[in-house]
C-alpha cells in the first residue's frame, strides 16, 4: 500500500499581530512546528503500513525552512519526503494551494491512499484536503475518527458528522482527513535521526512539475483576494478593574449579583 501524508509547517504560536497605529504586521519570534493535527494522519499511516506493508511519503508545500518539519516526519517513520517550494506559489489561497499540491503529487508517484490532518492551526480552514481530492479526481471523507478495515481495494472508515457518526466503505484510491485523537502519535526516533541522510527531502520547484499552469498558481491563480487586513474591533463599552485579589473578587461578586447571575 502506497500512502501519501500531506503535512504543513505552522507558526509555533499565534504571534502575528497588526499594529493599530502604523498598520505594520508585527512578528514575535518564529518557532515553527509541524501542524499538530498532521501527527494523527502520519501515525494512522504508520499503523496501516505495519499491517499492510508498503511505503509512506510525506508531502508539504511551503518555504525552504519547512524542510525541518518534513525531516521530523522521516524521523517518525516516513520513507520519503517532498517539499513543493517556489515563489510562484506565494500568496496562494485554498484553491491555488490545492492545485500546487495536486501538481506535486502527480510527480511523487502512484498512491492508494492520501491522509491529511483535519485542519491546520494557522489557516484553520480544513478545506485543502477536500479540494485536493477533487483536483486529483478522487473521493474523500473528512473528520475520520477511525479506520475500521482496509485492504488493497477499499477502506472502511467511521467519520464525525457533528450529531451523527457515519460508517462507510470507500474504494481506493481516496483521501481521508484524520480527526485529532484518532490515535496517539509516536515520537520521532533518535535512531532514525542518526540514520537519516540530510538530503532525504526532495525539493520540487515549479520547473519540476510538468504541465503546471502558472496562471493557476499563487496569487494569480487564487479566486479569493485579501482586500485589506485590520486589527479586530475593540469593544468601546468596557470597564476595567484593578486592585488586590480581595477587592477584585468583591467587585466581581457584586457585578454578578447585580446582573442576577448569583
Amino acid at each position, binding site marked *: 500500500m502506497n500512502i501519501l501524508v500531506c503535512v504543513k509547517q505552522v507558526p509555533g504560536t499565534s504571534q502575528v499581530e497588526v499594529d493599530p497605529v502604523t498598520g505594520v504586521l508585527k512578528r514575535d519570534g518564529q518557532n515553527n512546528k509541524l501542524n499538530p493535527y498532521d501527527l494523527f494522519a502520519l501515525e494512522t499511516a504508520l499503523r496501516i503500513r505495519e499491517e499492510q506493508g508498503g511505503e509512506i511519503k510525506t508531502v508539504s508545500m511551503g518555504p525552504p525552512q519547512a524542510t525541518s518539519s518534513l525531516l521530523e516526519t522521516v524521523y517518525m517513520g516516513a520513507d520519503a519526503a517532498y517539499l513543493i517550494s517556489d515563489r510562484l506559489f506565494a*500568496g496562494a489561497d*485554498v484553491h491555488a494551494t490545492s492545485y500546487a499540491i495536486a501538481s506535486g503529487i502527480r510527480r511523487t508517484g502512484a498512491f492508494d491512499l492520501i491522509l491529511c490532518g483535519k485542519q491546520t492551526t494557522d489557516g484553520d480552514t480544513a478545506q485543502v484536503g477536500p479540494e485536493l481530492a477533487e483536483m486529483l479526481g478522487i473521493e474523500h471523507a473528512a473528520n475520520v475518527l477511525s479506520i475500521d478495515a482496509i485492504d488493497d481495494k477499499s477502506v472502511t472508515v467511521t467519520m464525525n458528522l457533528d450529531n451523527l457518526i457515519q460508517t462507510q466503505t470507500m474504494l481506493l484510491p481516496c483521501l481521508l482527513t484524520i480527526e485529532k485523537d484518532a490515535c496517539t502519535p509516536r515520537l520521532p526516533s533518535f535512531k532514525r535521526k542518526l540514520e537519516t541522510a540530510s538530503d532525504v527531502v526532495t525539493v520540487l520547484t515549479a520547473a519540476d512539475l510538468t504541465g503546471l499552469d502558472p496562471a493557476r498558481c499563487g496569487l494569480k491563480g487564487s479566486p479569493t483576494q485579501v482586500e485589506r487586513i485590520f486589527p479586530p474591533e475593540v469593544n468601546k463599552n*468596557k470597564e476595567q478593574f484593578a486592585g488586590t485579589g480581595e477587592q477584585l473578587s468583591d467587585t466581581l461578586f457584586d457585578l454578578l449579583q447585580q446582573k442576577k447571575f448569583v
Partner: protein
Amino acid sequence: MGLVIHSEKINEESARALTELCPFNAISYDGALHISAACKMCKMCVRKGPAGAITFEEEAAPVCDKSAWRGVAVFAEQHGGRVHPVSLELLGKARELAAKTNHPVLALLIGFETDGAAQELLRYGADEVYVYDSPALKEFVISPYANAFTDFIEKIKPSSILVGATSLGRSLAPKVAARVHAGLTADCTMLEMKDNTDLVQIRPAFGGNIMAQIVTPNTRPQFCTVRYKIFSAPAPDQPHGTVTSMPVDEDMLAGRTTVIKTVKKPDEIDISDAEVIVAVGRGLHAREDIALAQRLADRLGAQLACTRPLVEAGWFDAKKQIGLSGRTVKPKLIVAIGISGAVQFAAGMRSSDMIVAINQDKHAPIFDIAHYGFVGDLYDIIPRLIQKMEEKAHV
C-alpha cells in the same frame, strides 16, 4: 502579477529595513535581495517598506460576466428531514445581502422526503427552494451530494453561496468549489455585499490577531462557510416563495462510497447551547486546578469550556473548545479566566451578551473585547469569589 524588487533602490540599509519588516521571514539579503516561498503576499513590504524598493505589479485579470450570476444561495443542510439551524441563520443573512443588489434568496436542499424541510425554508424567507430528493440522498454521500450541488450551480447560476460550517458543510463545500473553480472562504465572521455583487468576506487570518477582508473579484460563484451561531435566525413568516423539484438521474448518484450505518450520537449538552459559560486558558497552572473552575461553573450553573492549548495539552475534550477551530458560543454570560484572547478564541465568543475576563496581563487582547475586565491573579480572585457565592447560598 507579483512583487518586483527594484535592485537600484536596494542597499544595506533598505535591505535591513525590508528584512525586518516582513512578518513571514520571506525576505533575505546576501548582497542581493531575495523573496522566498514563505511570502504570503501581504504586501507589507510594498506599503510600509522604503519607497519604490519593492512594488506590486498588477496584471488585468479576465473578469467573468457577473450579471449572468444571480441570487444569494444557502445550502440547506438537513438530517432526517430536519433543517440544521445554521441554515436558517444563513437565510436571514442572505436576505440582508440580497437586498443590497436586489437579488433573490435561493435555497438548495438535498436529501430524501424533504417536503417539510422545503416548507420550513420558505417560512424562513427563501424566494426559491431547489430540491434534489431521492432515497439515495437520504444519507450524506460525497459524490452524489457534490454532483447535485454542481448541477444546481450550473443550472441556476447563483452569484453567492453560503454554507454552514458544520462537519458536512466543511467537507462538501470545498469539493464543489474546487470542481467549479470557485473561491471559498472558510468560517467568515462578517459578510457584506458590494453594489457590484462582490461578497465581502471577513475572517481572522494569518493565524494571528488580524482580521482579513476577502473578496472574489473576477470569478463566480463566490463561496463561503459560516459557523453555527455567528448570525441570528430571522423570525419565521408567511411563505411567499416557490419550491422547484430538480431531476435526479443515475449519473448524479454514481460514486465509490457505500454508507454502512449512521448512528446518532448520545445527547450531551453542547457548549454552543449553554447560557452561561466559564472558560479557562493557559493561565491555569496545573490540570488539578480545573476543579477550581468547575466549582465556579457549578455555582453559576455554567458549562465549563476552554481554549485550544488546553485541548492540545490533553486537559479537555475537543468538544469543550471555544474558537475558530472549536465551537462558537453566544451565552448570556461568559467568564474568561486566564485567557489571553487571541483572535482565534475571540472569534468563537465575541458575540456573547456579557463578557467578563480575568487576566494578570492588563495588555491581554481579551480586555479589548471584554465588557468587564479584571486585571489580577485568578488564584487570588476565584477562590474568594466561590467562597462568597457559597456563603450567600447558605444564608
